[in-house]
């Protein structure tokens, strides 16, 4: 009898304990996340009105400041994707460098001579920072991702690269907010500088972690950045639609056809989207045509800034 009653007492106490803990948690995370979101999480481009308020000289300063260095991480296995990226979107970066794990015939890239992807990223980041010249924004991606660099420039146009910025499509893993690798990672000059400093700390930001338990590169990057006071921000447009996508355009359209059959295109993707992942070379050529060429006559946007097409190119 006494066993039963003590079991019941235990149960009730356990229930109360759980209630108290969860109430405490929601209260805590409520205030904490509010503050957190307000300070960091969402990053949007300037509105059209704000853009028009800028003077011509302000505009020309911003235009110079917003130059992008693209770091594209390839391997010999991704030869076809390397060729496609080389022939398409990477031409719109102010400087694009392909970093490879090992040298391979036909693959023209900077040979890092390293098999571990995290170590390659570290080396590439150091190399890019040292060779940046006047460039102050850095875009890290695999060649399976397609990027519209002009829209990236639009997003960071009014952001100061001497401040730490770490932008892309953010996900949460426990307490860690990280930017997904598959949809591209944007880093400002200051973020790069702090990151390279943190690389020296083998405890907080180890080069080669424990062999048994290895965090994905995107989370290792987020951790190192977090220790240097740089936090992930989600790039989105004025309507809150994500600008960085790890899915292909056709997948996103198909998803939208299922979820929003009455308003497929409006509900699908942003007009100013920056990245799409998982696209095959043929789809990428069509996307190039769709972004940089195909348009309806008589509909003009009159953006306050103009970006000229790259030299020696015929698919844009």
């Amino acid at each position, binding site marked *: 009898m*006494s*066993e*039963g009653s*003590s*079991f019941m007492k*235990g*149960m*009730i106490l*356990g*229930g*109360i*304990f*759980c*209630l108290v803990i969860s109430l405490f948690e929601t209260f805590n995370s409520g205030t904490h996340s509010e503050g957190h979101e307000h300070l960091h999480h969402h990053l949007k481009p300037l509105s059209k009105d704000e853009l*028009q308020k800028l003077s*011509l000289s302000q505009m020309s300063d911003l*235009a110079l400041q917003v130059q992008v260095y693209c770091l594209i991480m390839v391997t010999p296995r991704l030869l076809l994707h390397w060729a496609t990226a080389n022939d398409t979107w990477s031409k719109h970066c*102010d400087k694009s460098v392909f970093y490879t794990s090992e040298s391979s015939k036909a693959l023209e890239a900077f040979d890092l001579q390293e098999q571990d992807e995290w170590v390659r990223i570290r080396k590439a980041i150091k190399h890019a920072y040292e060779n940046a010249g006047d460039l102050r924004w850095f875009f890290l991606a695999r060649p399976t991702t397609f990027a*519209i660099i*002009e*829209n990236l*420039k*639009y997003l960071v146009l009014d952001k100061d690269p001497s401040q730490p910025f770490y932008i892309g499509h953010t996900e949460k893993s426990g307490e860690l907010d990280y930017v997904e690798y598959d949809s591209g990672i944007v880093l400002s000059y200051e973020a790069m500088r702090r990151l390279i400093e943190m690389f020296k700390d083998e405890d907080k930001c180890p080069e080669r972690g424990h062999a048994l338990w290895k965090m994905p590169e995107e989370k290792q990057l987020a951790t190192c950045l977090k220790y240097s006071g740089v936090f992930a921000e989600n790039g989105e447009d004025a309507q809150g639609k994500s600008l960085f996508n790890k899915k292909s*355009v*056709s997948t996103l*359209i*198909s998803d*939208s*056809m299922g979820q929003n059959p009455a308003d497929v*295109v409006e509900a*699908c*993707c942003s*007009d*100013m989207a920056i990245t799409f992942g998982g696209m095959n070379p043929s*789809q990428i*050529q*069509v*996307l190039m*045509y*769709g*972004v*940089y*060429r*195909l*348009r*309806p*006559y*008589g*509909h*003009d*946007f*009159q953006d*306050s*800034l*103009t*970006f*000229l097409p*790259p030299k020696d190119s015929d*698919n*844009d």
Partner: protein
Amino acid sequence: MKALGVRSAFYVGFVVGTCTLYVLLRQVGFTRSLGSPEPETHDTSLLEMIEEENKNWKKERSALFNLNHPHHTGENGALADTLYKRVRILCWVMTGPKNLEKKARHVKATWSRHCNIVVFISSVDDPDFPTVGLNTKEGRDQLYWKTIRAFHYVMEKHGDEADWFLKADDDTYVVVDNLRWILASHSPEDPLYFGRRFKPYVKQGYMSGGAGYVLSKEALRRFVEGFRTKVCTHTSSVEDLALGQCMEKIGVVAGDSRDTIGRETFHPFVPESHLTGTFPKTFWYWNYCYYPIVQGPQCCSDLAVSFHYMDSSHMYLLEYYTYHLRAFGYKYRYQPPEPKIIQDLNAPAPDKVEAGDIEERLGVEKQEEEEKSHELNVKL
């Protein structure tokens, strides 16, 4: 022994209590987030959509009349609006009862919204969609018969309400604004028709059916007249060829629809095929095209008018690429010249000016001025 049992029973009870309540709390939180708000917003957005539809479309006499030329947030559509008023296009779409849900519905949701008038031609009347039933049978051999009946129908019911008459399939995607750009340099009173020009069998060539083709008002008049006088007959089952043969007989000229640097605008296949595919040398296509075939990026004009064999997801994809996705501030390499109608508007004869013309001209001029003052070139 008994004391140990009591204590462990307490601990076990504690753990069980914690876990049970944790699960319960999660369930409650879960259901609350899934709760009532969802269906409410769904209903209001559906209502909003229907209202929106009624504002933009008038359903009358089994046709859809476009009341408001679609505009995009943040764009200056003045030039497109001017062309919309001056180059009125009636689009008739060849479909059938089995394809309404599969194909025609997506045409209705995408490109046909940019036509002045849309008519869906079927074998069966459907006042809801709406479709016009022509009392024909379905099937490939019925295509020319359906086409003849369809052109007669639009001439009779809508002949005065449009300047140009486009035929398209329910798997053709058409950029109607670009079609207006081409047609705005020609007169609807001239006997002309445009499309993807093929060369065999007909001296002046004929237009591919799948890529869509468009007749001027005069061409349509002559087509109807040609059947009345039996100059043209309906014995063939090859729709586009038979139409092309008729056009030649009645003196309608097969036009060159390529852009100002010779790139094709009407396309008989999907964008991938033209941009990336290599057609085998034995493929019939090589012997059919009137103009030299170009493979790769120069296959297709920036101001493309049509693509064929487009399934539903492809249509939405192209709608997104054409009207939505863009590169901020990008200066296109190809700067198309203004079509003749706009040039005439900007430099009219002094005594012929109308009040409406002045407004339009000022609108277009103002747009050009704004462009010059706000632009800042950035060299990459």
